[in-house]
Every structure is written in structure tokens, then in C-alpha cells.
């Protein structure tokens, strides 16, 4: 029984990790925490299921590709129109703005797609395989596969290409980076677009797990942020570890202690970390202490 609960928790943890990664990237380059991240997840799930799967009758891969592309474009546009302007603002102005922007996105999804929850079967249907008595659904296998692929691919890109250095340079000193010929605005927009693609993937992967509703992303976005704090503010391996740990611990605690206090447990884990180990599991040198 416990094994079953752990597998489900880890699958959810992989989703948190994807969102946490998006948070980490945005933080590293823009010094902003996007409290609207969860609504990006919601919005992309709607675009994916309502527009591309149900509307245009595309297959999974094409629909996922287009949904990710649309979110990347939206992300790049939002980063230029809204988020770039928030960078020079005081922390609480930036936070409240992204909270407001999230409310806007959520309501927009409701206005466009209506209150009816949407159902999507997933690319491999709703079946499951039994692994030593533990049932793992096809969708959960897909989630683990995609998450691992993305993390490995991303590690390789950051490790062996200039991209990682370019991002890091932009984060450290924007003016100098610009002088060195780095297209700073493009890097910022690109990073944000990538964070949106991660959110889109999280939304696409979650859609068959649950129904697509306007509420589906809100808590996921916040827990992704919690995962990033647990992992180490802005740390990329930390975000992954934090996501998995959060998914694991909240589901296990829900099973062993109290299911009703499940969300409360996630936030309690956060509080414990903030008091005992505020720098997170894998601390970043440039962490935000303020």
C-alpha cells in the first residue's frame, strides 16, 4: 500500500519539480518569483486539451508541441510586456503583480473555456501495469520518462554549451553581459519562455491524470515554489530534489497521518525548512536571503 502511495507521490513530485525548475530559471536570470506559475500550468492544459486535442483533433505529440510552442510565445511576450517591468520594482510590488497576473490568467481561462471540467484520456489511455503488486499507470510512466529526459537534456545543454554560461552571465551582471555582446533581452525572454514550456509540459502531463479545470494549477504553482525553496533558492538540482521530496512527503504523510491536512503538510514542510535549513538542500551561492 505504502509503495503505491509513494509512486503516486513521486509522480506528483516530478510535476512539482518541473514547475520548480521554471521558478529556478526565472529567479536566476530575472530575480523574480512568478506567483502566476500555476496559472501558466492551467492555461497550457486548457490550450492543449480544449484547443489542440478537442478543437483541432491533433494527436498527442503534435498537440503537445503546439501547446508548448504557444506557451513559449506567450511566455516571451509576457516577459517583455509584464515581467521585464517588474525587475526594477520593489520585491513586494513584483510579488503582488504576479499574483494579480495569475488571477487574470485563471479568469481568462474560465472566460474562454467555460466552467465545465474537461476530460482527456492521455496518449496511452488510462491503463496501468503491475510492478510487484504496485500499479503504475501509463501516464505516470510517461511523467517519469518526460521528467528524466528533460532534466538530463537540460543538464547536458547547460554543461556543454555556451547557453548556460550566457544565462549565468546575464544573471550576474546584465550590463557587462550586454557589453560582451550577449543579447540580454533575448536571453531574458528566452528563459521565461523556457519556464513557460516547463509549465506547459507540467500541464500536459497533468491533464490525463486529473481533469482540466481552472483550479488545477494554482496549488501546483505554489508547491513548485515551495519545492524550489526546499531544494535551495535558484538551485537547479535542488529544484528537482525539492519537487520529488515534496511530492513524496505530502502523499506519504497524507496516507500515514491525515489526508485532510495534506496541503497543510506541504506548507508545514516549508516552514520547518525555513526555520531549520533556510538555505535549502542544495544551496546556491547567490541565494536570495531577503
Amino acid at each position, binding site marked *: 500500500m505504502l509503495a503505491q502511495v509513494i509512486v503516486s507521490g513521486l509522480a506528483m513530485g516530478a510535476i512539482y519539480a518541473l514547475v520548480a525548475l521554471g521558478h529556478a530559471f526565472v529567479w536566476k536570470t530575472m530575480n523574480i518569483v512568478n506567483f502566476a506559475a500555476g496559472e501558466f500550468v492551467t492555461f497550457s492544459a486548457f490550450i492543449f486539451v480544449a484547443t489542440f486535442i478537442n478543437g483541432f483533433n491533433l494527436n498527442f505529440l503534435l498537440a503537445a508541441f503546439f501547446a508548448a510552442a504557444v506557451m513559449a510565445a506567450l511566455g516571451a511576450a509576457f516577459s517583455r510586456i509584464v515581467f521585464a517591468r517588474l525587475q526594477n520594482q520593489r520585491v513586494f510590488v513584483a510579488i*503582488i503583480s504576479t499574483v*494579480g*497576473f495569475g488571477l487574470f490568467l485563471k479568469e481568462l481561462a474560465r472566460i474562454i473555456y467555460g466552467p465545465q471540467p474537461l476530460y482527456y484520456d492521455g496518449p496511452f489511455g488510462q491503463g496501468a501495469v503491475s510492478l510487484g503488486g504496485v500499479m503504475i499507470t501509463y501516464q505516470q510512466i510517461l511523467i517519469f520518462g518526460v521528467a528524466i529526459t528533460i532534466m538530463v537534456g537540460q543538464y547536458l545543454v547547460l554543461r556543454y554549451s555556451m547557453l548556460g554560461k550566457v544565462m549565468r552571465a546575464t544573471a550576474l551582471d546584465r550590463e557587462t553581459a550586454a557589453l560582451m555582446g550577449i543579447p540580454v533581452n533575448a536571453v531574458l525572454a528566452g528563459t521565461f519562455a523556457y519556464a513557460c514550456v516547463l509549465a506547459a509540459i507540467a500541464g500536459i502531463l497533468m491533464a490525463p491524470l486529473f481533469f482540466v479545470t481552472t483550479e488545477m494549477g494554482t496549488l501546483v504553482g505554489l508547491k513548485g515554489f515551495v519545492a524550489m525553496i526546499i531544494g535551495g533558492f535558484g538551485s537547479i538540482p535542488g529544484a528537482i530534489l525539492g519537487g520529488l521530496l515534496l511530492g513524496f512527503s505530502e502523499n506519504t504523510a497524507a496516507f500515514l497521518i491525515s489526508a485532510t491536512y495534506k496541503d497543510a503538510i506541504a506548507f508545514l514542510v*516549508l516552514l520547518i525548512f525555513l526555520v531549520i535549513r*533556510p538555505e535549502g538542500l542544495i544551496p546556491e551561492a547567490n541565494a536570495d536571503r531577503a
Partner: protein
Amino acid sequence: MTVSMTARKVLLAVFLIALALPPFLGANSYVLQVLNLSFIYAIAALGITIATGITGLIVLGQAALMGVGGYSTGLTMTVLGWPWWLAMPAAIVITGLAGAGLGLLSMRIKGHYLAITTLALNEIFRVVVLNESWLTGGPFGLRDIPVLRVPMLGTTVSQQLYLPLLIIAVLIYALAIRMYGTTFGRRMRAIRDDDLAAETMGVNSRRVRVLAFVLCSIAGAIGGSLYVLTFGFISPNNFALFESIRMVLMVVIGGLGSIGGTFLGALVVTGLPEMLRGIETYYLAAFGLGTVVILLTVPRGMGVIADWVLAPWLPEARKSQADQPVKQFKAEDQEAEDARAVAVAERLRAEREARAKSAPAPEARGTLLSVENASKKFGGVVALKDVSFTVQQGEILGLIGPNGSGKSTMINAISGIAPITSGRIMLEGKEISGQPAWNVHAAGISRIFQNVRVWGSMTVLENVMIAHPATRDLDVLRSTFGARSANAAEDEARVAALEALSLVGIRHLADRPASDLSFGQSRLVEIARGIVNKPRLLLLDEPGAGLRGGLILELAEILKDLRDKGMTILVVEHRIKLVVEMCDRITVLNLGEKIAEGSAESVARDPVVVDAYLGGKVERRRPAKTPAPDMTGPANPITN
């Protein structure tokens, strides 16, 4: 075009009277109920304005504090059978304690962490209230709370409570505005604008933060209590996260930090959906987008109107500056400024020379400050290594050294914002190392920063008044309610601040917002702020940096004048020439160690010093050095 303060007072009176009229004009109970709700939420949202808007501490969970207040009132009334006039103060105390806890938490948790934490606590509160039905009534809420009745004011509850709620709201807002303009309000704003500078200038940020949270909670508690007494029912759904976001919206639409604006924001956020019944589908989306647009384009929101009307009571809008277009500093101003600086410098020099003829400058009278074996490590980097030196009473000591030598670290260590790792620092025989910055300030050490750190949203006068000891220990109650001693202290601080401004020659700028000033003027404000408490020791971190000719002259004269008046000065500079002119004695740091000490001439001739500046090859008197500490690295909170 200006409108006199009297006219604005009249306008405010008209507005308040108009607000009081609806029940007498036959408005139906529905309209009154909507307005009642907006008064209640205006009170609760004021808490966010105090904590977030004025003090800069993010509270995204105000609904939970409102809920603690509401449930406390409801439960003491139903379970303990207390009357409302006992239940409400009890609720305020209980919620205030919860707020104090939150405030203590905010010592460790700031910025983004605080945002997510308050949000999380809101969610936890709701889940707990929902689950623990034995106490809270669970999902069906507390249902049997007696509603407050005032039969002489009408027949329905909405009619009866309209005037009481309005009056309570207006009173609470009046108190908030009063607090905003007095010492506690100044300290809150200083922490919001620049908490480091605030701490160094004697603001006990710990106490102010906790109190800000307590005030925020009290506002929430009053709002929650009034809600319960008006409607006789509360449930967990009343205090969901969405309600917190709604209150944040009120604050933002009202202009973050504007007290009057919050009231208007509450009217809009509560009233508009009722006026627009039928198109509710769109207004939440519009509110969300509106938040972003307002914050980015008109951050003052409806505060533009409210603060204009309330100008007679707001320090930064006093006089009539608020009506004039914001003055940008231009080239011709620069010249006028320069001329003024030269004039001040000449006057001070003349005075000093006149004094010198009549009486010789006082001699040094023993040790004021002694730094004993001070070391400072940032992670693995050694920024100060076993440094010892003393500052004598009444002297100007120069602390020099090339970039990265640890000068600023030394200043930060003395002023208490970056405590040393080992060794100790004594002021007249009392240890000050290990003390928080505000205690160091209280002990008589004041400083100015290398990069100007004035509190931009406050007036020049307020900037200086904060540092005056007369109002430092005034608590929020005494200063807000205007006890006679508090008013006297306010006056004393104001007079002293104006004197300090006169001394540095910028008294005419007293009522200007500090953000309007030029760099040079801001530096003078910092000096005035630094000397208003008549410190024993003034620490100057590169005071000449970024100043032009006239202002440098003025600065040098001001410092000499202060020295003549008995103030001891420790000045950090890396331009030797300036130091030689100004200082009585010089201490030289290089790579975190003291390498020389003595008179200007002896130091300037010391080959070790010369080499330290030119490249550091000479190693005659010491063994091999540790690797150069990187003083500009991110680990150092205050970079050179």
C-alpha cells in the same frame, strides 16, 4: 494651480458628511449593507496597508488574521457568553498575539519567503477551522452569534449599524494617518525604503516589524469582529485565500502605501461588483489585470485623490509641493547648487578662522573607540585579519587603503551591521561589538554610507528626525495618541533636525521628498541625519565619492566645523590627497590587515604604504600574506 489646505479640509468634511447621509436619504438596506461590508473590509485591508504598504512586509494572508479575530469574537460570545464589548477586545488581544508570532517569524523569513509563508498560513487556517468542527462549527460555520443592535438608528441591522461602522472606520483611519506622520510611522517607512540604513540610524527594526504585524493583525481582528457582529455568521469560506487576494486588491487599487487610498480601494472592490451585477464574469479578470497595470503605470492608484485631499495630515504632502510637478534636477540647478555650496563653505571657514583666533582647537582627550584584534570572515574569505587601532577623542582619523583592503568592512563592523567574527570593539570602555546596529547608534556612533542611502519616499526633515534620540523610544501608542510628552519629543526632534539641516545648508529643502534631491544634496541629508543625534563618533564611508568641486569644499569645511565642536570622526577614503588635507591621523589597511599608522606625512612616506598602493611587492616587515580577499564579491552585503 494650488488648492489651499483649508479647502482640502473642507472637501474631506464634505466627503465624510456625504458618506454619512445615505441612511437619512432613504437608501435601502441593500445599499447600506454593501457600504457596511466595504467599511468592514476597509478596516481589515488597512492592516495590509500598514504591514505591506508602509513597512514593506508582504502579507498575503490577511483573511486568516481577520478569521482569527472573527472566530475569537464569535466563540467568546457563544461559548463563554461574553458580551460584544468584552469579546471584541479579547479577539484583538488574541489576534494581536498571533500577529506578534508572525512578526517574530518575519525576523527569519523575509521577502518571497514571507509571501509564501503568509499565504500558506492562510490555507492552514482555513483547513484547521474546517476540520475542527467541535470548536468552530466546521463547514457550516458559527451560526448563533448574537448580532449587534442599535434600535434607535433604524429597523434593519444594516440601517442600525451603518453609522457606527462608518464612525469606527473613520476613527481607525484617522489614527492610522496620525501614526503614519509620527515617529513610529517614520520608522516603518524607513524600514520599507531601506532597512539597513534604518537600523544604522537607530531604528530597532525587530521591534518595528513585530509591531507592524501586530497592528496588521489588530486591523484584521477589528474587521473580523465587526463582520461577526454585523452578520452573526462566519464560516471557513469567509476567510479563504481568495478573500486575502481581494483585500490585497483593495490596497493596490488604493495605491500601495496610501492609507486614504485603501479606503477608496475598499469601496471600489466591494461596491463595483454590485454596480456591475450581470457582468461579474469579467470583473475578476479585470481586477487581476488592473492590479498589474496599476502597479506598473499608476502605482499610487486612487491614493492620488486620497492623498491630495488628506495632504494637510500627510508629512510628504505638507506645504504645497504635492501640487507642483515633480522637480527634476537640471544643469542650471547644478550650478546654483554649486554656488550655494561654495558660499556655505566660505561661511564655515570664516567662522572657523574667527574661532581659531579667539580660542585654540581643543586637544585630544584620550581614547574614544578602540578596535582590538578584530577579524571578519565571509565564508572562507578573510576580510579583516587581527586589526587593532584606536580613535582619540576629538580627532579626525583617516582610514585608508587600496580597493579591497577592508575599509568598508571595518566601518560596517563598527556600526554593527556586519558583526566581526572575533576580537572586540569598545566605545569608551564599553563593548559594542555584537550589539545590533540600533544599539550602536544609541551608544553614540553614527555613520553615512558610501552609496547614498536616504529614504526616498520620506521628506528631508523626516529623514533627519528619525535619527534623533528624543523620539527613538517613543512607543506607537504614545506617539499616535499624542500624549503631551510625545508631542514635546516630536517638537524637540523637529527643531534639532532643522538645526542640523541649517548647519549643512539645506534647510530650504526640509519639506521636499528625499527622492527629489540631487546626489550631492542627498549626501548632505545623510550628514545632517548622521549628526542630528550629536554622536560621539561619526563614521564616514568615502564622503567625497561622486561629489563635485563646490560640494567637496563644503563637505571638508563641515567636517572641520564638527571636529571643532567636539565630534570625533573616522573617515574612510582611498584618495590620499583628500585624507591628508582633512585628517589628524591616518590608519592604513591593506588586504584586511593594518599596515601603517601615524601622521599624514609619516604614512605618506612609508614605503609599505606606497607599495600597497602601487602593487604590493614590499614585504619587509611581515611574513607571506594570505591570498587577497575579494571584497567586491557577493558574500559581502555592503560592497565597496
